[in-house]
């Protein structure tokens, strides 16, 4: 009798186990890597990848679920074979992303009908602001401030952009360095000779063996669009003799919109043999100082006797690398579009995120085109006046 009863109970067990396990939702992936064949799938792939890859959902005010509710039906009515519909979709993507706070964020399109379209929400927002100005080549004015014998170097980067660097002295008492983008290490380690190597050799040699007449350093990263992240350690590593904690970063840690790793210190290590800067340093940056150039401005700002003069920087502070390293950041919707977005979110050493806001100067001096055209750089003037 007991054996029969036990068999019955085990049977009951099985039934109950099946019943209870059916309470769970399924855990199927909602992110696909296949080419979407209709607009509904294009939307799903874009929405889901943004949902899991974008780094700022904890502070962004865009309601991504509302975007889903509003735009999913609109995309479902589009025909991916119809040129007009494909072009119409660009407008939808533009509206969906217009309020994202990340200032690196761009969408470029792979689909042949819309290859020339480009979405850059932060640029579109800035263009309509009062103080907007385009990048300006300050060096065309500032070369007149430099003492004779200054060095200029150019290098064609692997991204096919022209890197220009300038270094020299001003009034025999200020060491000056300018670059229009950051590919310094790339230029320095490239095969053959290039002018940038000479400029870097001159500038770093002056830093390490500071002549007694030099009373300060001016670092000019105005209208510097950023560049290689490797330059942060390479460049700032020459100014310090111990590790510099200048903020913290976190990354995505799962598919959840709010799944992040803990914040970890952002550290720049000194280069072998480097010495701490012993004279004041002033960094010049403007509203077209972007990405790595902003990070360098912020890192310099921590050094003793440092000052930042100019304008609020662009506000694109999340560093970017290949998607595979963190499984977050930039992604593609196969055969349709490509999204450029941060791999990490960055908080400055003061605990604040300046993403979308830009880093504010200690002394604000606005861009003044008429003065510059007249050969007078008001921001540089101020910096020179503060170094005695």
């Amino acid at each position, binding site marked *: 009798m007991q054996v029969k009863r036990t068999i019955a109970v*085990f049977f009951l067990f099985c039934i109950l186990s099946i019943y209870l396990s059916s309470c*769970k939702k399924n855990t199927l992936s909602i992110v696909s890597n296949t080419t979407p064949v209709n607009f509904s799938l294009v939307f799903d792939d874009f929405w889901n990848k943004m949902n899991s890859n974008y780094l700022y959902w904890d502070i962004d005010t865009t309601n991504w679920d509302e975007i889903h509710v509003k735009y999913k039906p609109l995309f479902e009515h589009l025909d991916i074979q119809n040129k007009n519909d494909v072009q119409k979709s660009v407008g939808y993507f533009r509206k969906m992303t217009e309020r994202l706070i990340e200032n690196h964020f761009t969408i470029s399109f792979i689909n042949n009908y819309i290859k020339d379209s480009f979405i850059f929400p932060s640029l579109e927002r800035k263009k309509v602001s009062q103080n907007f100005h385009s990048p300006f080549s300050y060096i065309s004015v500032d070369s007149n401030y430099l003492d004779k014998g200054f060095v200029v170097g150019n290098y064609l980067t692997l991204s096919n952009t022209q890197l220009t660097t300038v270094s020299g002295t001003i009034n025999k008492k200020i060491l000056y360095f300018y670059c229009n983008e950051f590919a310094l*290490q790339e230029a320095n380690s490239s095969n053959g000779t290039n002018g940038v190597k000479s400029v870097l050799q001159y500038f770093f040699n002056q830093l390490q063996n500071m002549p007694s007449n030099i009373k300060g350093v001016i670092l000019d990263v105005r209208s510097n669009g950023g560049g290689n992240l490797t330059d942060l350690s390479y460049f700032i590593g020459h100014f310090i003799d111990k590790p510099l904690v200048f903020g913290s970063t976190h990354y995505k840690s799962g598919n959840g919109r*709010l799944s992040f790793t803990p914040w970890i*210190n952002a550290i720049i290590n000194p280069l072998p043999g480097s010495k701490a800067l012993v004279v004041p340093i002033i960094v010049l940056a403007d509203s077209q100082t972007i990405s790595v150039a902003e990070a360098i401005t912020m890192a310099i700002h921590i050094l003793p006797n440092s000052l930042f003069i100019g304008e609020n920087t662009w506000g694109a502070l999340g560093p970017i690398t290949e998607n595979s390293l963190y499984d977050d950041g930039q992604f593609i919707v196969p055969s349709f579009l490509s999204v450029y977005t941060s791999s990490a979110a960055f908080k400055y050493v003061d605990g604040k995120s300046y993403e979308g806001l830009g880093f504010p100067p200690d002394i604000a001096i606005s861009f003044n085109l008429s003065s510059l055209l007249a050969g007078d750089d008001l921001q540089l003037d101020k910096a020179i006046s503060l170094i005695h």
Partner: protein
Amino acid sequence: MVSLKLIWLTDVQIIYLMYHYKNRLFYLSIFFLLTHVSYSQIFLGLQGGISNNYLETNISNRASTAIKSHIGYSVSIPIMYKVNDWISFQTDPNISQKNYSINRIDSFIGIYTQYNNTYLQLPLSTSFYYGNKVQIFATLGSYFGYWLTGQEKGKIPNIFSVTTTGNGSGERFLLTAFDQKYQFNSQRDNRLEFGWLTGIGIQYRPKDSYNLIIECLYYQSVTDNQNNYMANQIPQYNKTLFLSFSLLWPLKNKTQTCK
């Protein structure tokens, strides 16, 4: 001690009821079990053991990434109400770890985040015994849990440490280690857990004064450990295997004739 009106059902009748009243299966089974009473005894004890937890979710979209189960501990104070020789009800309020890690694999090996999560759990279960002095038993029940604390540790490439490799063609990142308390996010984290459990064990009663139990229990959460805070959410469930050793003493002994 048990005051239910007693009904004797044959096993055929039980299966008939199970077939026709599927949606009332749970209530029927409780009723059935309560009516098979011959005597009762309450035990109190101590239990300790290890847990091995796995996070069930879908990360197939994440390149070179795998979820790995991890060992933790479990301690509890089991309370068992032994209805008769072959059935008991028990609860064992416990503090248990449900640990797992998300590891990068292939060329990213060395990058990982390990989550050591501690839960307070209250299981309610029934066990069915077979044997005399040495009994084997099977257990089925459900549990409630509360996610008390968490610890995150791991290694991650520090993006700002990037340098170029010797020939300038690649990038090298330094791994940064972290080990810190998990920061709960009320929007994201669902700290309440509910699930079912099942298991098997061996009970040894050398004397009437105490019981020795070795038990293997499987806990399956049916609640997502995230709140339902976004569309297209991929749920995450804890699946935990416990291996424990218990020592129980009778508190009260009472015999009843019921059949």
